[in-house]
């Protein structure tokens, strides 16, 4: 293993964030606060409780998940797209580095950054509502798995995309709606019967449900189902990445 190379890529990617510190840290804090003002304050005052939890507290796990997913995805897709765009990718591809090492470094950095943002949101939310975490180990597990899975997904998008439109397209048109409809702001059983069935087709529902369960001990779907769906999604992403490396898809003409 070329650990030095992985370390170099990882810290290179982390350093890139420092240049855009405002964007990376300040904006999630700001948007979370806005969510609390709008959803927790304005709307939440009319919805008193969901499943015995105050509405403000209820949306916290969903908000964290929402940021975790979108941030992992955009960090990773941009992280690997950027050197292809500038042409600097030649250096990584001609170095004695394996594809696995490249992936671990890029995905690791993207997931780390997203988790830092997730943590900031968690802490910010603590100022607005009382938060309890009933199952911390499961919470960390879902947190990690989601960050890694979506970073892998983003990594794939970043390799697939050959222009900025494509890079924005998938996250904007598919991932963001799925994330919003995934039960961040409501419980699935608040939906009409028919829509509940549709909602279960949305993989994000399982992530958010599992994550919320680790906070408040209640969920839309069972823990087992949540964790299995997460693992399946992770497995699919890993499989696609492996395929990309085997065929050299887009990276090696």
């Amino acid at each position, binding site marked *: 293993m*070329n*650990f*030095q*190379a992985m*370390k*170099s*890529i990882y810290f*290179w990617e982390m*350093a890139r964030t420092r*240049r855009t510190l405002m964007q990376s840290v300040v904006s999630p804090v700001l948007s979370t606060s806005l969510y609390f003002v709008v959803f927790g304050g304005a709307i939440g005052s009319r919805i008193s409780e969901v499943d015995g939890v105050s509405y403000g507290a209820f949306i916290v796990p969903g908000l964290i998940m929402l940021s975790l997913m979108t941030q992992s995805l955009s960090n990773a897709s941009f992280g690997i797209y950027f050197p292809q*765009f*500038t*042409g*600097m990718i*030649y*250096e*990584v*591809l*001609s*170095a*004695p*580095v*394996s594809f696995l090492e490249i992936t671990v470094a890029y995905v690791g950095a993207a997931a780390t950054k997203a988790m830092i943002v997730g943590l900031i949101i968690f802490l910010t939310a603590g100022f607005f509502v009382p938060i309890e975490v009933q199952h911390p180990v499961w919470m960390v597990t879902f947190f990690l798995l989601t960050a890694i899975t979506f970073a892998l997904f983003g990594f794939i998008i970043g390799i697939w995309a050959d222009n900025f439109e494509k890079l924005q397209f998938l996250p904007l048109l598919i991932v963001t709606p799925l994330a919003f409809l995934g039960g961040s702001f409501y419980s699935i059983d608040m939906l009409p019967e028919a829509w509940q069935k549709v909602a279960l087709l949305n993989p994000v529902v399982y992530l958010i449900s599992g994550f919320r369960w680790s906070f408040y001990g209640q969920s839309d779907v069972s823990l087992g189902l949540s964790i299995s769906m997460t693992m399946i999604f992770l497995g699919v992403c890993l499989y696609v990445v492996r395929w990309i490396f085997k065929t*050299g898809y887009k990276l*090696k*003409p």
Partner: protein
Amino acid sequence: MSQDCFTKIGTLPEDFPVHMTPIISIRDLEKTYSGGFQALKSVSLDINAGEVFALLGPNGAGKTTLISTICGLVQPSSGQVFIGGHDNQTSYRQARRLVGLVPQEMPTVQFEGVRDLVRLSRGLFGLAPDEKLLEEILKDLSLWDKRDAAMKELSGGMKRRVLVAKALIHQPKILFLDEPTAGVDVELRRDMWRIVSRLRDKGVTIILTTHYIEEAEEMADRVGVINNGELILVEEKAALMSKLGRKELMIELSDTLPEIPESLKGYGLELGAEGRSLRYTYDAQGERTGITGLLNALAEAGLRFDDIHTKQSSLEEIFVDLVRAN
């Protein structure tokens, strides 16, 4: 840069017969791009350790494709490449450790700093940071003053130097320079030649591509000519020039000559402007150059001349001939 900074890195296999085996060995390499375009047609080539090899060819000949395939950036359709005896696919780590690459295309990075970029390159090759070497290389490339500048603050020539620094920071035994002087100013071009010759003195093998013949003429030990994906010729530079080179004999006449006399028609002479010179072209390698006969014939025709001199055709002319013939 000290001599040993280039020799301590990169491992050849224990039993590698350094003096008998080429440092790069390319066997029947073919590349057909996914669109169906065949960019390399069964290329076989050996590069000797320590030589400067110039790959010449017009635009689109396949020079970059060949280099990219050797360096692992392009997947070959068939064939093999050995670098220092290591297969560049199955033992890519060992193979790539020996190689530094300066690509043709300038990456469009903007905000990254010079030193950070060069440090990253060293890390990618699995080596611990070496600030002393970094300083040496940057100073050597006249980049030390710009060490903390962002790429966007640098001129095109300076950026190219950064690419060279990135390629050298892991102390490669083999350096690829893909069109190192395309579109750069005279100063940088001369600098690049100086860098190449110093690296060569240190024992680094250098493969450069160019379509400036003068560059090959100036720097190379051997020249390969590639056209339409085919390596049509590989030759010692000197041998190539004398083998294919035609020589010209210029005869400056004392008096104006209105037309070539009947007795001299058989020599294929060309009459220069104002009838004051005659040009005779002959094969420098030929059994008989025909010069003696020509001079006798001139005397018999009563032509007097002030001066005669010869001129060897340049690589440029040889090259144009070759490519046209193909």
